């Protein structure tokens, strides 16, 4: 149902949309019943139709049962909701499937920095690709993210993933996602972070295999050139450097 309003682009988006649907149905049912009974009473017992009110204390069992039975049904619905809520939550926040790749996400006032692992698929090496306000992903891979903040609280939010996680200074928070649809989508900051909070927009680009390789190569060309320059400089200075 949520897909009618906003696309699903991650593997767990459907879990989240499912619990939302469960609540729409159960919550909607109770809302409808309560409002219907409420308005019906207003209509049936308006003074012109019922000039003399009854005297009902609500203490007798025959009266209370009208409250108790809906009450028990509400509890049953609640348990059903709790089950699916925890299931969806577990899938997103507690489970951590093995990573195909990792990205480092750094929030600061007022931009997102993304560090991609580069061709060697290892974060923290010289071929890492650092971008500002654009995250590049390959469709179908399981990504772990390492989320940090340089200053205040921020929150990494990708609505089409149905993902959100606050970035807390002094911590590195790990999570995961698996993009399932190619395209370009919004990234928002979901925690008030100062005057630039509303402008902290970024984009997530989900590529097919070949597109991603193309993008990666375009970035690493720069790295390869840098390495070549460094080696040339070392030779020129007669220093022993990497070859």
């Amino acid at each position, binding site marked *: 149902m949520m897909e009618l309003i906003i696309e699903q682009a991650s593997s767990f988006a459907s*879990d989240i949309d499912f619990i939302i649907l469960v609540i729409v149905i159960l*919550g909607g049912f109770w809302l409808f019943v309560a409002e219907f009974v409420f*308005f019906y009473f207003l209509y049936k*017992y308006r003074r012109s139709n019922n000039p003399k009110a009854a005297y009902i*204390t609500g203490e007798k069992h025959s009266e209370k049962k009208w409250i108790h039975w809906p*009450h028990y049904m509400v509890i049953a619905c609640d348990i059903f909701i709790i089950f*699916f809520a925890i299931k969806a939550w577990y899938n997103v926040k507690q489970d951590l499937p093995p990573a195909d790749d990792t990205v480092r996400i750094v929030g600061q006032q007022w931009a997102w920095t993304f560090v991609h692992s580069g061709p060697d698929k290892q974060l923290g090496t010289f071929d890492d690709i650092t971008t500002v306000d654009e995250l590049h992903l390959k469709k179908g891979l399981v990504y772990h993210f390492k989320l940090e903040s340089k200053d205040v609280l921020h929150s990494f939010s990708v609505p089409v993933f149905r993902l959100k996680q606050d970035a807390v200074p002094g911590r590195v928070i790990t999570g995961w996602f698996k993009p399932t649809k190619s395209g370009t989508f919004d990234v928002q900051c979901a925690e008030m972070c*100062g005057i630039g*909070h509303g402008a902290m927009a970024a984009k997530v680009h989900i590529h097919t295999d070949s597109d991603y390789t193309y993008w990666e190569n375009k970035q690493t060309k720069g790295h390869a050139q840098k390495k070549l320059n460094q080696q040339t400089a070392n030779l020129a200075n007669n220093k022993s450097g990497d070859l």
Partner: protein
Amino acid sequence: MTSSASTHSEQSFWQKYIFSTDHKVIALQYFFTGVMMAVVGAFLVYVFRMQLAFPGKEVLGFGVVSSGEYNALVTNHGTIMIFWVAMPMLIATFGNYLIPLMVGCDDMVFPRLNRLSFQIFFLSALVMLASFFVPGGAFGGAWTAYPPLSTDPNYSLTPAGSTFWVLAVALEFVAFLIGGINFITTAMNSRAPGMKMFDIPIIVWMIVIASILFMASVGPLIAGAVMLLFDQLLGVGFYDPSKGGDPILWQHLFWFFGHPEVYVVLLPALGIVAEILTVFSRKKLFGYKTVLYTTIATGVLSFFVWAHHQFVAGIDPRMANVFTVTTILISIPIAELCFVYIATLYKGSIEFTTPMLFALAFMAEFLIGGVTGIFLGSSGSDIYFHDTSFVVAHFHYTFFPISIIAVFAGVYYWYPKMFGRKMSETLGKIHFWGTIISFNLIMIPLFYLGAAGQHRRVYNYEHFSELSKPYLQDLRVFATVSMIVMLVFQVPFFYNFIMSLFRGEKAGKNPWKANTLEWTTVSPPPHGNFAEFPKVYRPPYEYSVPGRKLDYWPQNEKA
């Protein structure tokens, strides 16, 4: 037993209206301060919603809204509406005015302390308003004031504003702690002879339980606010990770108070609605004891749900499961309360006066607020809805009934007692329909926008391609226009209020034919309240008792 009314000598204007210790005067002082702050709060939302509807355009009465100003507008709209409108109107106005009258005594037990509580409250309002005029401008870090944004002026860019904000809120807390002592002690100890526990009107219980909830929950936040101030002013690091502190500590302290706080304001509203529902359906409250015990259960449970505001904040994910269970379960006593109130209408004889219309609207709207809360209490769905406009719509469907609809209901209902005249029913109904219809037209678009991924506290959605689609912007404009319509419909209320003071139909002691003790004395009651202090012979909701000629039976009437 006669009262002290006759022994009070002539008082000057200052003694009578400004430095009075009379609970009725203090109640109205709180009320008018609350009204003035509501006007400020309404102006703030007018400005920022105009920015959302017409980004970058000059707003009439304000100018162009910068992103920093936008943040300050949303921050202070929320802060003012909760602390300087909802709380004074619900607890301090109705609590102060009604408790001594409804329990049948001549004032609060500590009138001078009562006066002090208002003075501190008034000071807190001045400090809050002053924060708009300090260098750097008003605080803009959201009403939740999460550090490090709220502690470090390098991040917030509002060094003075941040401190004024904390001081204003802290002073407000002190005012309500002091006020609460009066409400609780007066209700416990100053009751009319014959008024046993279950003879106390529900609104009195509600305000007392709310005061206890407030008292028990605000302490840790006061400690937290002192720590926030020290971080701001002395460079200590309670919430600074680089100094060994933790920003999440503030969140826990804040929400440990923040969640019970919503029940602190809900309970008095439920009390007002109970009084009005019974009178205008001529029916006994269904299950008085059920109402009382469910309310106490809700109050106790409310201390165990707070971290549902922090699901994605970086808390241990396993904790989220605990809090989602407690949060969904708290919907059970609240649902029971809603069912019981609806049951009160069953086989009633319902008269749709203006106060009754507002009390009924409270129920219809609050049901929506309650149900939409489930999306947020459920941890899985909250990952998506957290920080979106969906949250804003949810809490307006709870807060608006609580702090606006129920307050209007109470004003229309007790105005005759307070001022000796009735308000115009015609103007009241115009005000009612204009307010309620436009309120829904503001908020329903916000549910949709939130579901579409629109986040809160963003001054301009043009930065986001998914959110700047024309039909979404149309919804924002529609919500803004509806809000302006709603503000315009408050004019009949103000006009009605003022005009009726002079030209309203004279009310007499008991225009609504109600049972509770405030209706047994003159309208408005004199200093000292009762010529003769009443005794109580029965519970408060004996309406339409079979075999009796009249369909009401005042508490103080001998058999």
